[in-house]
């Protein structure tokens, strides 16, 4: 990858659960709320999801100090193999990015491949007026 190409990341993991279980973890609000929040410690996380193409999901996270929201829309739904959705909020700098989750059954487990594309470039971030404070806020909350 060169520094000028559109940035994207790809991760692969073996999850010790069926593809259906993993698909549910991505799409059922009461399960989404239990692992998708980037905050450590006591956090009230509420998730909503309208699981149809064009439907939206939203995660609202509140702790005593801070809060944030992540939301997006479903682009493709193929249970329990594939889910494509837009994703906006930390850590994307509120820009609409695209996440693809692919689930391949392997023996007693699922190979999960996550691709996160259309990450905002420096130019786009500046265009959205996203500054240092936001970036640091995010780093503090979600990375450390």
């Amino acid at each position, binding site marked *: 990858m060169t520094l000028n190409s559109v940035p994207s990341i790809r991760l692969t993991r073996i999850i010790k659960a069926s593809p259906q279980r993993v698909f549910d973890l991505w799409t059922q609000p009461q399960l989404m709320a239990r692992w998708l929040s980037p905050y450590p410690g006591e956090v009230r996380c509420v998730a909503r999801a309208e699981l149809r193409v064009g439907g939206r999901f939203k995660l609202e996270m509140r702790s005593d100090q801070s809060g944030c929201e992540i939301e997006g829309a479903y682009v493709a739904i193929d249970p329990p193999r594939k889910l494509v959705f837009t994703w906006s909020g930390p850590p994307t700098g509120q820009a609409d990015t695209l996440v693809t989750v692919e689930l391949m059954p392997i023996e007693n487990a699922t190979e999960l491949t996550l691709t*996160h594309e259309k990450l*905002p470039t420096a130019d786009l971030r500046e265009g959205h007026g996203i500054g240092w404070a936001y970036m640091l806020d995010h780093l503090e909350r979600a990375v450390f």
Partner: protein
Amino acid sequence: MIANIGKGVSQNQRSAHLDAVFAALADPTRRAIIESLGHGEARVTELAKPFAMSLNAVSKHIRVLETSGLVRRRKSGRDHFLSINPRSLDDVETWIVVVRRFWNQRLDAMERLVQQLEKEERKR
């Protein structure tokens, strides 16, 4: 400096710079210094005021920030002014590291939840 990383710089050097940026930002005092500098250029003495630590201790934090390329220093007579290097977090690779870390941590949490759900189901 992170801003100057480009062609002709090895992957190892690039990742060493990123490590320096993350190490610099991992400390709450250094994040607070960066936040103060977000309002504009400042003298070392001004920056040190809000912290309950010696000027020397604050200076050490500032040196870490300078080494990482996040902060730069300008000398004017006896005064040393510090400011944020505005291009230092514009590196696309930095962004990718942030997002990659985010998902790795979330997937760690997913794996913990998978185990938790199995326990809950066994109890039923």
